């Protein structure tokens, strides 16, 4: 499944001629461990099901990984993939929840998702609905102050139905996170903000599933899963390269990339 998702991401961005492969590829296992396992409760025939789990892609530029996952899960026809970023498409450059089945929240302005997740988790608790809220952020995104406002809210409210996942790939748009505005160490930061913190290899699906299950078993605190990843994972020339944050592969590059993906992760 991860191979298919990676292939879909690259083909989508290639046909759109713009988009963000780096941060989409780094989140493939994070997303597939959630949606393609017994972790995340959803029903493709009833995307408004009350006790579904909620997912918020706060790093909205990674839309292609969400689209690939939702399409492969069956929320919409995969034929839409090739319309990514085109006029009239349900697959907007950044997710637009209004027109996208299976997507709970629009995104694109970084730093806002965790607050929304806090609101959702609180509402679920108030309504006695047994469901969890997952929110994926980038590590660069942690530079937005709102993230830390939300972190304190989540801890204050003891939202143990809330799981933050940090795609810890070390790179943002302009370069290395540590060179621009260092956000590390993450484990200690989130622990001191009263989160239950789990560190995992973000490209190991089994480890990720285990982490999600630890989150579910955890009581009294929100959870932060720090998923160590590689930006551009799976395509050697995109890996750890900030230039591929927001660049579409050309025909030649796509061919090379798909071949590498066929070979599997190193």
């Amino acid at each position, binding site marked *: 499944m991860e191979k298919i998702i990676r292939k879909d991401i690259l083909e989508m961005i290639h046909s*759109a*001629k*713009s*988009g963000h492969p780096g941060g989409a590829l780094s989140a493939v296992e994070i997303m597939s461990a959630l949606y393609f396992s017994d972790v995340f409760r959803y029903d493709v025939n009833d995307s408004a099901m009350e006790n579904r789990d909620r997912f918020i892609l706060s790093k*909205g530029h990674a839309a292609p990984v969400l689209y690939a996952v939702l399409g492969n899960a069956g929320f919409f026809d995969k034929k839409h993939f090739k319309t990514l*970023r*085109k*006029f*009239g*498409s349900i697959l*907007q*450059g*950044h997710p*637009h929840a209004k027109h996208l089945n299976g997507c709970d929240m*629009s*995104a*694109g*302005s*970084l*730093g806002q998702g965790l607050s929304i997740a806090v609101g959702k988790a609180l509402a679920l608790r108030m309504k006695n609905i047994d469901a969890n809220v997952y929110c994926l952020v980038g590590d*660069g*995104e942690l*530079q*937005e*102050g709102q993230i830390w406002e939300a972190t304190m809210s989540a801890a204050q409210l003891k939202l143990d139905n809330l799981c933050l996942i940090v795609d810890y790939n070390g790179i*943002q*748009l*302009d370069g290395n*996170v540590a060179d*621009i*505005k260092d956000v590390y160490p993450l484990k200690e930061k989130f622990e001191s903000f009263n989160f239950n913190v789990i560190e995992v290899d973000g490209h190991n699906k089994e480890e990720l599933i285990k982490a999600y299950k630890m989150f579910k078993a955890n009581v009294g605190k929100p959870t932060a899963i720090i998923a160590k990843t590689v930006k551009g994972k799976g395509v050697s020339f995109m890996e750890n390269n900030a230039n591929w944050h927001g660049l579409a592969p050309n025909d030649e590059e796509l061919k090379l990339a798909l071949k590498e993906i066929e070979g599997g992760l190193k």
Partner: protein
Amino acid sequence: MINNKPPRDGYGEALLDLCRNDENILVLDADVAKSTRTIWVKEQFPNKFLDVGISEQDLIGISAGLASEGIVPFASTYGVFLSGRGFDQIRTTVCYDDLNVKLVGAHAGISVGPDGATHQALEDMALMSVLPNMTLIAPCDSNEAYSATMAMFKHKGPCYIRFGREAIPLFTNKEDDFQIGKAKVLKEGNDCTVFACGSMVHEALMAQEILEKEGISISVVNVHTIKPLDNETVLKFAKKTNCAVIAQEHQKIGGLCGVVSQYLAQTYPVPIEYVGVADTFGESGEPAELMKAYGLTKNDIVLAVKASISKKK
């Protein structure tokens, strides 16, 4: 043949010239330095550059602090996040204390294209135009962006400049006289006046050519400074043509449309038509495709001119 060039290039070139003169500036960005062209400063004058990361509110606050100590900050990022995310910081820190902060909103307008609605600043001029002490500029091409940046540097007080992502026709010269608050009359005709800013100025010039062939003679005024408005020129042309069109790559509400309409409503009411986005969000698409779909082309200006003329008494 007219060349195309993105206005942000003019901004980047001006920054480099200011750095070469060793002016007392600091160029700040919030993790979009390639897009805003501040990366040129990072590469050539690293001690005049600071990337604060993905932290727009911090960007504005730091700039305010720098300005209060006499350094001229150029706070640059996408217009949508600069004006939106940082609005309170701009209002209550920068403008209230009348601080000498230069705010640079890149990728403004719908022509941002495939990134879609979240990245298309269609409200920034409305937001900035209601702020006391603010100077608001929307240059029409890369050369005017250069001149405007230089003028902003010399001007004391808060300024916001906005321009789009795309390469657009380059039809002015860097040497042209540019004064903040002084509109430029590009064409003089008697039937209607088009007041335009930013990318709409060149569209208005093309509309003028189309209309001329149909025997309709219009004035085209480049109102690069939305605030303070060049009242004198606006009034003069309202009186000359007795109807107007206002064009901006922005919501029809606020910005140039709002400022000119309010002024004329009080001084010399004339029929006005608007060319802008009609109270809706944008979407993904190719820039030209979106400009057409959202009514922001020369043809839309032609239609608006005719509609405005037809309302004349």
